[in-house]
Protein backbone atom coordinates (compact mmCIF):
# COMPACT_ATOMS: atom_id res chain seq x y z
CA UNK A 1 0.00 0.00 0.00
CA UNK A 2 1.19 3.51 -0.77
CA UNK A 3 1.28 6.27 1.86
CA UNK A 4 -1.11 8.43 -0.11
CA UNK A 5 -3.76 5.72 0.05
CA UNK A 6 -3.91 6.15 3.82
CA UNK A 7 -5.08 9.74 3.32
CA UNK A 8 -7.47 8.70 0.55
CA UNK A 9 -9.08 6.21 2.94
CA UNK A 10 -9.16 8.37 6.08
CA UNK A 11 -10.02 11.87 4.80
CA UNK A 12 -13.55 10.93 3.63
CA UNK A 13 -14.26 9.56 7.11
CA UNK A 14 -13.50 12.89 8.82
CA UNK A 15 -16.16 15.33 9.96
CA UNK A 16 -15.01 18.27 12.11
CA UNK A 17 -12.33 16.47 14.10
CA UNK A 18 -9.09 18.34 14.84
CA UNK A 19 -6.18 16.50 13.19
CA UNK A 20 -2.61 17.21 14.31
CA UNK A 21 -0.10 16.31 11.58
CA UNK A 22 3.52 15.22 11.97
CA UNK A 23 6.07 17.23 10.01
CA UNK A 24 7.36 16.44 6.54
CA UNK A 25 5.40 14.58 3.87
CA UNK A 26 2.52 13.87 6.24
CA UNK A 27 1.65 17.56 6.42
CA UNK A 28 2.28 18.10 2.75
CA UNK A 29 0.33 15.15 1.43
CA UNK A 30 -2.68 15.85 3.61
CA UNK A 31 -2.63 19.54 2.67
CA UNK A 32 -2.33 18.73 -1.04
CA UNK A 33 -5.19 16.23 -0.98
CA UNK A 34 -7.62 18.23 1.12
CA UNK A 35 -6.85 21.29 3.17
CA UNK A 36 -9.06 21.57 6.26
CA UNK A 37 -9.27 24.35 8.86
CA UNK A 38 -9.27 21.64 11.53
CA UNK A 39 -5.83 20.49 10.36
CA UNK A 40 -2.89 21.55 12.47
CA UNK A 41 0.13 21.29 10.18
CA UNK A 42 3.14 20.99 12.47
CA UNK A 43 5.89 22.02 10.07
CA UNK A 44 8.74 21.90 12.62
CA UNK A 45 9.17 20.45 16.13
CA UNK A 46 9.58 16.88 14.90
CA UNK A 47 8.13 14.38 17.37
CA UNK A 48 5.69 16.73 19.05
CA UNK A 49 2.50 16.05 17.07
CA UNK A 50 1.60 13.44 19.68
CA UNK A 51 2.10 15.74 22.67
CA UNK A 52 0.24 18.59 20.95
CA UNK A 53 -2.62 16.18 20.20
CA UNK A 54 -2.58 15.00 23.81
CA UNK A 55 -2.88 18.60 25.03
CA UNK A 56 -5.85 19.19 22.75
CA UNK A 57 -7.50 15.92 23.78
CA UNK A 58 -7.14 16.74 27.49
CA UNK A 59 -8.50 20.27 27.10
CA UNK A 60 -11.27 19.37 24.65
CA UNK A 61 -12.74 16.20 26.15
CA UNK A 62 -15.89 16.51 24.04
CA UNK A 63 -14.02 16.44 20.73
CA UNK A 64 -12.48 13.38 19.14
CA UNK A 65 -8.87 14.32 18.42
CA UNK A 66 -6.71 12.64 15.77
CA UNK A 67 -2.93 12.63 15.49
CA UNK A 68 -1.50 11.70 12.08
CA UNK A 69 2.03 10.66 12.89
CA UNK A 70 5.06 9.09 11.19
CA UNK A 71 7.30 6.29 12.40
CA UNK A 72 10.32 8.60 12.68
CA UNK A 73 8.30 11.12 14.63
CA UNK A 74 6.98 8.47 17.01
CA UNK A 75 10.44 7.00 17.58
CA UNK A 76 11.80 10.46 18.38
CA UNK A 77 9.22 10.98 21.13
CA UNK A 78 8.46 7.50 22.36
CA UNK A 79 8.04 8.79 25.90
CA UNK A 80 4.93 10.61 24.75
CA UNK A 81 3.29 7.24 24.11
CA UNK A 82 3.72 6.62 27.84
CA UNK A 83 2.19 10.01 28.65
CA UNK A 84 -0.80 9.27 26.44
CA UNK A 85 -1.18 5.84 28.04
CA UNK A 86 -0.97 7.34 31.53
CA UNK A 87 -3.34 10.25 30.91
CA UNK A 88 -5.53 7.94 28.85
CA UNK A 89 -7.79 10.51 27.16
CA UNK A 90 -10.67 8.48 25.77
CA UNK A 91 -11.04 10.93 22.86
CA UNK A 92 -7.62 10.50 21.23
CA UNK A 93 -6.91 8.40 18.13
CA UNK A 94 -3.24 8.14 17.20
CA UNK A 95 -2.64 7.05 13.61
CA UNK A 96 0.91 6.25 12.53
CA UNK A 97 1.90 6.02 8.88
CA UNK A 98 4.81 3.63 9.11
CA UNK A 99 6.98 3.47 5.99
CA UNK A 100 10.02 2.31 7.99
CA UNK A 101 11.99 5.31 6.72
CA UNK A 102 12.50 9.02 7.16
CA UNK A 103 10.94 9.56 3.81
CA UNK A 104 10.84 13.34 3.93
CA UNK A 105 14.62 13.58 4.15
CA UNK A 106 15.43 11.00 1.48
CA UNK A 107 14.19 7.59 2.67
CA UNK A 108 16.94 6.88 5.19
CA UNK A 109 15.84 3.83 7.17
CA UNK A 110 14.27 4.31 10.58
CA UNK A 111 14.27 1.36 12.97
CA UNK A 112 10.55 0.73 12.96
CA UNK A 113 11.05 -2.49 10.98
CA UNK A 114 12.56 -3.90 14.18
CA UNK A 115 10.24 -2.27 16.72
CA UNK A 116 6.58 -3.24 17.03
CA UNK A 117 5.24 0.25 17.71
CA UNK A 118 1.69 -1.02 18.21
CA UNK A 119 2.96 -3.22 21.04
CA UNK A 120 4.81 -0.30 22.56
CA UNK A 121 1.55 1.65 22.47
CA UNK A 122 -0.39 -1.23 23.96
CA UNK A 123 2.02 -1.73 26.85
CA UNK A 124 2.14 2.04 27.38
CA UNK A 125 -1.55 1.95 28.22
CA UNK A 126 -3.44 2.71 25.01
CA UNK A 127 -6.81 1.06 25.29
CA UNK A 128 -6.58 -0.46 21.85
CA UNK A 129 -3.69 -0.74 19.40
CA UNK A 130 -4.23 -2.09 15.89
CA UNK A 131 -1.83 -2.81 13.07
CA UNK A 132 -2.92 -3.02 9.44
CA UNK A 133 -1.04 -3.48 6.21
CA UNK A 134 -3.82 -3.65 3.62
CA UNK A 135 -5.71 -0.70 2.24
CA UNK A 136 -9.10 -2.30 2.81
CA UNK A 137 -8.32 -2.79 6.50
CA UNK A 138 -7.87 0.93 7.17
CA UNK A 139 -11.49 2.04 7.13
CA UNK A 140 -12.85 -0.61 9.53
CA UNK A 141 -9.89 -0.21 11.89
CA UNK A 142 -10.13 3.60 11.92
CA UNK A 143 -13.90 3.57 12.38
CA UNK A 144 -13.58 1.07 15.18
CA UNK A 145 -11.15 3.33 17.06
CA UNK A 146 -13.22 6.44 16.34
CA UNK A 147 -16.28 4.77 17.82
CA UNK A 148 -14.73 3.28 20.93
CA UNK A 149 -13.11 4.52 24.10
CA UNK A 150 -9.56 5.69 23.50
CA UNK A 151 -6.77 6.26 23.51
CA UNK A 152 -6.55 4.22 20.33
CA UNK A 153 -3.47 3.51 18.22
CA UNK A 154 -3.52 2.55 14.57
CA UNK A 155 -0.26 1.54 12.92
CA UNK A 156 -0.51 1.48 9.14
CA UNK A 157 2.36 -0.21 7.33
CA UNK A 158 2.98 1.38 3.93
CA UNK A 159 5.61 1.44 1.21
CA UNK A 160 7.84 4.48 1.02
CA UNK A 161 6.53 6.23 -2.08
CA UNK A 162 5.30 9.71 -1.30
CA UNK A 163 5.67 11.95 -4.31
CA UNK A 164 8.55 14.37 -3.71
CA UNK A 165 6.84 16.85 -6.03
CA UNK A 166 4.04 17.28 -3.47
CA UNK A 167 3.89 20.97 -2.57
CA UNK A 168 4.49 22.50 0.81
CA UNK A 169 1.82 23.90 3.07
CA UNK A 170 1.26 27.42 1.78
CA UNK A 171 -0.40 28.93 4.87
CA UNK A 172 1.85 30.73 7.31
CA UNK A 173 2.27 29.13 10.72
CA UNK A 174 0.19 31.91 12.29
CA UNK A 175 -2.61 31.30 9.79
CA UNK A 176 -2.54 27.58 10.54
CA UNK A 177 -2.82 28.36 14.24
CA UNK A 178 -5.61 30.94 13.94
CA UNK A 179 -7.90 28.75 11.85
CA UNK A 180 -7.21 25.67 13.94
CA UNK A 181 -8.00 27.56 17.15
CA UNK A 182 -11.21 28.94 15.68
CA UNK A 183 -12.45 25.44 14.94
CA UNK A 184 -11.88 24.54 18.59
CA UNK A 185 -13.85 27.43 20.05
CA UNK A 186 -16.95 26.36 21.96
CA UNK A 187 -20.01 26.53 19.72
Amino acid sequence: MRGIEVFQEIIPLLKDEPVVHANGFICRESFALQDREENFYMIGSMGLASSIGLGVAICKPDRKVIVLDGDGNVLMAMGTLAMIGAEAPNNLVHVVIDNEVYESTGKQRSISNAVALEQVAKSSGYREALRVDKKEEIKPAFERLMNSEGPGFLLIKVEACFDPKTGRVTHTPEEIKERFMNTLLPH
Partner: protein
Amino acid sequence: MSSFTSQIFIERLIQKNFNFFTGVPCSLLSGLISCLEEVEDAHYIPSVREDAAVGLCAGAYLSGSQPVLLMQNSGLGYCLNAFTSLNLIYRIPVLVIMSWRGQGGKDAPEHLIMGDISQKLLETAGMNYSVLKPENCDQVVEIALRKINEEKLPYTLLVEKGLFDERY
Protein backbone atom coordinates in the same frame (compact mmCIF):
# COMPACT_ATOMS: atom_id res chain seq x y z
CA MET B 1 12.18 34.75 56.52
CA SER B 2 10.60 35.31 53.15
CA SER B 3 6.83 35.30 53.12
CA PHE B 4 6.90 34.52 49.40
CA THR B 5 5.71 30.93 49.33
CA SER B 6 4.91 28.40 46.62
CA GLN B 7 1.29 28.69 47.59
CA ILE B 8 1.18 32.45 47.16
CA PHE B 9 2.80 32.19 43.74
CA ILE B 10 0.52 29.38 42.54
CA GLU B 11 -2.52 31.29 43.77
CA ARG B 12 -1.33 34.33 41.87
CA LEU B 13 -1.01 32.29 38.66
CA ILE B 14 -4.45 30.76 39.12
CA GLN B 15 -5.90 34.19 39.83
CA LYS B 16 -4.39 35.32 36.49
CA ASN B 17 -6.24 32.46 34.75
CA PHE B 18 -3.38 30.05 34.25
CA ASN B 19 -5.13 26.70 34.35
CA PHE B 20 -2.93 24.02 32.77
CA PHE B 21 0.23 22.88 34.52
CA THR B 22 2.83 20.38 33.40
CA GLY B 23 6.56 19.89 33.56
CA VAL B 24 9.51 17.82 34.66
CA PRO B 25 10.56 18.24 38.30
CA CYS B 26 13.51 20.07 39.80
CA SER B 27 14.20 20.17 43.54
CA LEU B 28 14.04 23.97 43.37
CA LEU B 29 10.46 23.63 42.10
CA SER B 30 9.42 20.81 44.40
CA GLY B 31 7.35 23.10 46.61
CA LEU B 32 5.51 24.50 43.59
CA ILE B 33 4.71 21.05 42.22
CA SER B 34 3.54 19.73 45.61
CA CYS B 35 1.38 22.77 45.90
CA LEU B 36 -0.16 22.14 42.46
CA GLU B 37 -0.92 18.58 43.47
CA GLU B 38 -2.66 19.85 46.63
CA VAL B 39 -4.57 22.88 45.36
CA GLU B 40 -8.12 22.09 44.42
CA ASP B 41 -8.47 24.23 41.27
CA ALA B 42 -5.15 23.18 39.76
CA HIS B 43 -4.15 19.99 38.01
CA TYR B 44 -0.56 19.02 37.28
CA ILE B 45 0.28 16.58 34.48
CA PRO B 46 3.70 14.91 34.77
CA SER B 47 5.66 15.11 31.50
CA VAL B 48 8.48 12.72 30.62
CA ARG B 49 10.64 15.28 28.84
CA GLU B 50 10.63 19.04 28.68
CA ASP B 51 10.06 19.15 24.93
CA ALA B 52 7.04 16.89 25.29
CA ALA B 53 5.80 19.33 27.92
CA VAL B 54 6.22 22.16 25.39
CA GLY B 55 4.07 20.20 22.92
CA LEU B 56 1.48 19.46 25.59
CA CYS B 57 1.29 23.14 26.54
CA ALA B 58 0.95 24.09 22.86
CA GLY B 59 -2.02 21.73 22.50
CA ALA B 60 -3.57 23.19 25.64
CA TYR B 61 -3.13 26.75 24.36
CA LEU B 62 -4.62 25.90 20.97
CA SER B 63 -7.65 24.57 22.85
CA GLY B 64 -8.14 27.83 24.75
CA SER B 65 -6.29 27.00 27.98
CA GLN B 66 -3.50 29.04 29.61
CA PRO B 67 -0.55 26.70 30.12
CA VAL B 68 2.38 26.81 32.53
CA LEU B 69 5.49 24.68 32.06
CA LEU B 70 7.71 23.96 35.07
CA MET B 71 11.22 22.78 34.29
CA GLN B 72 14.88 22.84 35.23
CA ASN B 73 17.25 24.82 33.00
CA SER B 74 18.98 21.54 32.14
CA GLY B 75 15.89 20.85 30.00
CA LEU B 76 16.37 24.03 28.00
CA GLY B 77 18.52 22.28 25.40
CA TYR B 78 15.78 19.72 24.80
CA CYS B 79 13.30 22.55 24.25
CA LEU B 80 15.14 24.92 21.95
CA ASN B 81 13.88 23.28 18.77
CA ALA B 82 10.34 23.22 20.11
CA PHE B 83 10.49 26.87 21.16
CA THR B 84 12.01 28.04 17.87
CA SER B 85 10.15 25.86 15.36
CA LEU B 86 6.79 25.75 17.18
CA ASN B 87 6.11 28.45 19.77
CA LEU B 88 7.96 31.34 18.15
CA ILE B 89 6.87 30.83 14.53
CA TYR B 90 3.21 29.99 15.25
CA ARG B 91 3.08 32.47 18.11
CA ILE B 92 1.98 29.93 20.67
CA PRO B 93 2.59 31.37 24.12
CA VAL B 94 3.44 29.52 27.30
CA LEU B 95 4.57 30.65 30.73
CA VAL B 96 7.79 28.82 31.57
CA ILE B 97 8.87 28.58 35.22
CA MET B 98 12.50 27.55 34.89
CA SER B 99 14.73 26.73 37.82
CA TRP B 100 18.23 28.13 37.46
CA ARG B 101 20.68 25.48 38.55
CA GLY B 102 24.37 26.33 38.34
CA GLN B 103 23.79 30.02 38.85
CA GLY B 104 26.96 31.85 39.84
CA GLY B 105 29.09 28.74 39.35
CA LYS B 106 28.06 27.25 42.68
CA ASP B 107 26.39 23.91 42.07
CA ALA B 108 27.06 20.32 41.07
CA PRO B 109 29.38 19.95 38.05
CA GLU B 110 26.62 18.91 35.65
CA HIS B 111 24.85 22.24 36.18
CA LEU B 112 27.75 24.65 35.79
CA ILE B 113 27.88 25.12 32.02
CA MET B 114 24.13 25.35 31.54
CA GLY B 115 23.89 27.59 34.58
CA ASP B 116 26.34 29.93 32.93
CA ILE B 117 24.69 29.98 29.48
CA SER B 118 20.97 29.73 30.26
CA GLN B 119 20.31 33.45 29.96
CA LYS B 120 22.43 33.71 26.81
CA LEU B 121 20.61 30.78 25.23
CA LEU B 122 17.23 32.32 25.99
CA GLU B 123 18.36 35.66 24.59
CA THR B 124 19.88 34.09 21.49
CA ALA B 125 16.68 32.21 20.82
CA GLY B 126 14.61 35.36 21.23
CA MET B 127 12.88 34.04 24.34
CA ASN B 128 12.08 36.82 26.79
CA TYR B 129 12.59 36.22 30.50
CA SER B 130 12.90 37.77 33.93
CA VAL B 131 14.49 36.56 37.12
CA LEU B 132 11.67 36.08 39.61
CA LYS B 133 12.17 37.68 43.05
CA PRO B 134 9.80 37.98 45.99
CA GLU B 135 9.72 41.75 45.53
CA ASN B 136 9.13 41.77 41.74
CA CYS B 137 6.60 38.94 41.48
CA ASP B 138 3.54 41.05 40.65
CA GLN B 139 5.51 43.11 38.18
CA VAL B 140 7.11 40.24 36.24
CA VAL B 141 3.86 38.28 36.15
CA GLU B 142 2.26 41.34 34.51
CA ILE B 143 5.12 41.55 31.99
CA ALA B 144 4.69 37.84 31.25
CA LEU B 145 0.94 38.29 30.79
CA ARG B 146 1.50 41.09 28.30
CA LYS B 147 3.94 38.97 26.29
CA ILE B 148 1.54 36.05 26.38
CA ASN B 149 -1.75 37.83 25.76
CA GLU B 150 -0.69 40.64 23.47
CA GLU B 151 2.32 39.33 21.57
CA LYS B 152 1.35 35.64 21.85
CA LEU B 153 4.91 34.71 22.76
CA PRO B 154 6.41 32.51 25.48
CA TYR B 155 7.79 34.11 28.62
CA THR B 156 10.19 32.57 31.09
CA LEU B 157 10.56 33.27 34.81
CA LEU B 158 13.90 32.08 36.15
CA VAL B 159 13.80 30.70 39.69
CA GLU B 160 16.94 30.91 41.78
CA LYS B 161 17.83 28.48 44.53
CA GLY B 162 16.12 29.34 47.78
CA LEU B 163 13.27 31.37 46.26
CA PHE B 164 10.64 28.78 47.03
CA ASP B 165 10.24 26.33 49.84
CA GLU B 166 11.77 23.08 48.66
CA ARG B 167 10.18 19.80 49.68
CA TYR B 168 12.12 16.66 49.05
